[in-house]
């Protein structure tokens, strides 16, 4: 892994492990975030993790008030991130919580399954089986509140995004590239929809509002249309 660090404007800095996307880079980043938050420096506003990078966002006035040499703020943060990286166990696995998610793969809920079947040269039943057999890691949450980027899909399911994004209903389960994901809210989306979950994925009246985080795992299991309609959130 070859880390590189770069500024993102004057109020953020990114530590990047580059590609390819893999579990080790991802868990290293997640461990680094945990270590940073165990003792956050004054002025730290957020630590945003991607697949293989983390971005520190800080309050410019508070950070600069701490530094003995404010003109060297970038070098200071670069050193800080390098220290965190060096102190992080690269083989640490973040605590694994498994979320079992029911999915209805019925044609009515799987708008893109037919076109996908043509593209991948697999029949729908095969796609569905491959999709729910695997256990996925949540690499990151982004794009929408609660949206999990799950991976990695088996090679046979590698697909292109749709050329024209379409309106996607809340709960839609979709795939694109080597990822699968679930839309917690209705949104325009370019991923291929293969099913829908009746689970409420984001509830602002609860704390935490979303049950999962990067580092957790997800396994899908198929349910019928009737079970979908009768589902009640616990």
């Amino acid at each position, binding site marked *: 892994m070859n880390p590189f660090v770069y500024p993102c404007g004057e109020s953020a800095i990114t530590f990047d492990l580059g590609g390819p996307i893999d579990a080790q880079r991802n868990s290293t980043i997640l461990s680094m975030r945990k270590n940073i938050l165990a003792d956050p420096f004054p002025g730290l506003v957020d630590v*945003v993790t991607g697949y293989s990078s983390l971005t520190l966002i800080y309050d410019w006035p508070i950070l600069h008030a701490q530094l003995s040499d404010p003109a060297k703020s970038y070098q200071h943060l670069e050193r800080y991130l390098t220290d965190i990286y060096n102190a992080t166990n690269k083989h640490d696995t973040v605590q694994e919580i498994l979320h079992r998610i029911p999915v209805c793969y019925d044609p009515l809920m799987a708008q893109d399954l037919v076109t996908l079947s043509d593209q991948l040269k697999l029949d729908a039943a095969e796609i569905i089986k491959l999709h729910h057999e695997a256990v996925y890691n949540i690499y990151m949450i982004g794009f929408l509140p609660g949206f999990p980027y799950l991976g990695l899909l088996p090679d046979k399911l590698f697909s292109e995004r749709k050329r024209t994004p379409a309106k996607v209903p809340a709960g839609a389960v979709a795939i694109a590239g080597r990822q699968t994901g679930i839309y917690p809210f209705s949104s325009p989306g370019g991923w291929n929809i293969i099913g829908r979950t009746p689970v409420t994925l984001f509830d*602002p009246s609860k704390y935490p509002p979303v049950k999962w985080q990067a580092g957790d795992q997800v396994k899908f299991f198929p349910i019928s249309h009737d079970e979908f309609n009768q589902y009640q959130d616990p």
Partner: protein
Amino acid sequence: MSIRIVKAGVLDTVQDAGRHGYSHWGINPGGVMDSFAASVANWLVGNQESTAVLEMHFPAPMLRFEKDALIALCGADLSPAINDVPVSNWQPLLIKKDAVLSFRKPVWGARCYLSLKGGFSIDPWLNSYSTNLVVQAGGWRGDKLQTEDAIPFEGKNLPVNALHASSTNFMRLPWKVKYEHIYDIDERIPFTSGPEWDQLSEQSRILMVKSAFEIGSSSDRMGYQLDGPELFREKNVQMISSGVTFGTMQLLPGGKMIILMADHQTTGGYPRLGFIAGTYLPRLAQSGIRSVLYFQLINLIEANQMMADRLRENQLLKKNCFENLNSFYAMHGYQL
């Protein structure tokens, strides 16, 4: 007792400095588009800069104050009037119960902030009063304001003697904040280069700093879609999604640029060409659709220097606002 929305505007939302620290749940921070105008509006009425304000666009709302209030309006000049008498932005206004605030026509800028001494009496969500329209939480019921909504506020500790001595519905407090230099439209907008800047062709890098870019009609609080020359990367290196910030300049697949604004999502997968200098975000926030922008590449040292200078100015400005308000209160026998 509340602010009654007599007639809702096109997009009025309660905002503060944003809901930060929740990117692990993908919750976008949101918050005000123009942090300078929102901060000054708060300082003028004796609030800390982080107090929630109402962000309004044009057409703006018509509001009735169901009790006395100390308010300020900063940002876009939308021709505000109290009971049809024109008032100014950037100045504290003491207003009487049942006064009606309206906005007649847009003169300059894109969003105007209304502050209220003591803020609103509403509940935060995840430590912030910013409205998140995607999840429909925060602010006022997670939504933009609707006609007939009534937002409660306390409005305690007002110098009511001064107010009731006046025969009109309101009183202008005799000081105004100078703001024009923050929003100078003749200036090029500085940006620092992003990690994918070097992947742009040399011609694209030249076009970026020489060409006019126009803020396109589908621009909004999430981002400004720019109309301008198409830009190209010489090498199409595969992008991996990562954290993005307010002011990130992304290159979209067709060669167009987008500048991420206040309602940006927490992560993005497009090439990052640059980052708008923090001190110019308020100027950008007040640039409406069809505004023409020119960019200028600067380095991080310069960007930091501008932040330091602006911080010093703002500290002085805040101090002056509080001192003026203090004196006014004292003069009328009150304590701030």
